[in-house]
């Protein structure tokens, strides 16, 4: 009986003290944007697509942008519908962590979707008030992929046709007309 009670008490104590050690809180990019101050200094997990550029800097940090919007699952170039602007935050990670990643998202490219764990830096004094996620671990959930928008030949033909009409319709100068008369 004592053993059982001891076991139960031990498990309760473990729950009380283990939570801060075990778990960063999963939040969305929108939460960090809308409630950034409330998450200042907290360890969080954020899912999203890496977009833009990978900036490998001389100070050992790689910077990029993590987007958590509707276009992560289906960018417009992949048939996605316009659903408003992007929702992204800047992130930085050690250069070594950023090497070997698929290219970041851009035109006709969905970037890698990752689960980034790190500390949310809100108005970081060491970076003159910038806000960003300082990533300590990165897990790639979905690989990036290329998209194909195709070519709209109808638009090209119409455009070329209009351009070709221009020299045909160009007005002849009046003195050229009078000479021919």
């Amino acid at each position, binding site marked *: 009986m004592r053993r059982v009670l001891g076991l139960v008490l031990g498990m309760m104590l473990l729950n009380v003290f283990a939570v801060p050690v075990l778990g960063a809180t999963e939040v969305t990019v929108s939460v960090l*944007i809308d409630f*950034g101050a409330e998450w200042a200094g907290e360890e969080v997990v954020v899912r999203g697509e890496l*977009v*833009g*550029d*990978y*900036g*490998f*800097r*001389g100070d050992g940090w*790689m*910077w990029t*942008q993590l*987007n958590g*919007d509707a*276009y992560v699952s289906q*960018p*417009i*170039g992949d048939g*996605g519908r*316009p*659903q*408003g*602007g*992007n929702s*992204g*935050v*800047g992130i*930085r990670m050690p250069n070594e962590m950023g090497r070997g990643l698929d290219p970041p*998202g*851009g*035109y*006709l490219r*969905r970037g890698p979707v990752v689960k980034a764990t790190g500390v949310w830096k809100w*108005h970081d*004094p060491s*970076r*003159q*008030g*910038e*806000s*960003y996620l300082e990533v300590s671990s990165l897990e790639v959930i979905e690989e990036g992929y290329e998209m194909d928008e*195709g*070519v*709209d*030949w109808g*638009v*090209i033909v*119409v*455009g*070329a046709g*209009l*351009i070709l*009409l*221009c020299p045909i*319709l*160009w*007005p002849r*100068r*009046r003195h050229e007309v009078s000479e021919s008369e």
Partner: protein
Amino acid sequence: MLIRPHVEDVRLIGAVMGRIFLVMATATVLPLVWAALAGDWHPFGSFLLTIGVFGLLGVVGLRVGTEHPQVNWSHGMVVVALTWLVVPMISAIPFVLSGHFGDTLDALFDSVSALTTTGLAVISDLDHLASSLNFWRHLLQFMGGLGIVVAALTVFAGSGGISLYIGEARGERFLPSIISTARFLWAVAIVHFVLVVTGLTVVGWVVLGFEPGRAVFHAINMFLAGFSTGGFAPQSTSIGYYHSAIFEVVAATAMAGGAMSFGLHHSLWQGRPKDALANLETRTLLSSMGITMFLVLVGLVMTEAFTAIPGLTRQGLFQIFSAHTTTGWATISSTELGQWGGFAFVAMGIAMAVGGMGSATAGGVKALRVGLTIKAILNQIKQVLLPERAVITTGYYQGGKMRLTPEVVQSVMTISLLYVGSYLLGAGVGLVYGLPLKDALFESVSAAATIGLSVGVTDPSMPVPLQMVYMVEMWAGRLEFMALFALLGFVYASVRGK
């Protein structure tokens, strides 16, 4: 009595607009080539179509128009107003075909915002946009900032240039002819282009670690948006994307170059910096910047938004500089900007409303008008305080000693009141749609003063009437109202004139 315009008037307007459309067709070749080099074949088609439409309209204008148009004042104003209506519509073709806009109105909104150098945007998924289309957005800002008609004036000579020049809200003429003045504007832009693009490319490549091609891409687009004080950016997080104080400083030189009047540039090029500093406009702008920067720092300290001086100064001062030059770049999200209250909000409001210098790419009421208004008010106070028989003469220095005549005061007050009226009208419509007063006023000032900072109101889901009101505000604000009234008068006279 209003005189109905003749067919000859319409032909004359058509002839001038035809030339302008041909210049726009030529300019559109730039993104076409970019699209071809980048392999953006879908946008390539849309640029080809845009060139075709501009080109055809241009040729039609030449065909139906008079061969040697002799443009008078009212013709010039109507040409400017019509150009600034039609060009955004055609320029929106690539946006419509891109799939990044919910409907044609949204595409037109961004086109108007680009050309008026406002910078408010309703584009969806900017971060997956083709680089050629991104370049087109920024190029439109540059063309709009410099002036579509001014761009055309550098190419074709013709009479009536002064009314075209002034109709595009360029008040200063500091060289003998309008053509030489327009060409000087381009010279200033080219010098800034070389310096700023080189600087931003080096920062992007060496400091930020971008690939060289991407560093050039960012540099070119940020110059186009900065010098035009338009405020678009290639990525969705604005200038905050770069997380670099050095990048912000170099980009700020483009903002400063664009917000300075071209007359001031001319004084500096002529080696007369003291002249430039003596100008009422320069002193007013510097005073306003100083006051608003102080207020924003006080406001941010009181709200404890930033805890350290470097953060306070970098974020606060950059935002004020961005607002005062009417660029609209943001280092913080629109959500966070909307949370700035107290003195910080007041400072931003003043900076946005005052704007930059006249005869520059900047918007707002303009520093010279604010300075003249203050002088006129002080003049009135003196008249009250001094004996009745006292003679009060008020002069000011603006490129030389000038007299503050009643006509000058009337002109200044009229335009200033029109701006304030526009700010309030847009705010009123925002209130009708349930926006809080602070947000409604902020967004309306941002549109009419062509700033582009947003507290989140401008969005694809915004009500259509509000969207249209902002578009009219941007258009009227960019042209400083006079060309708009000239067009309305022309249309009215066409219908009701004798």
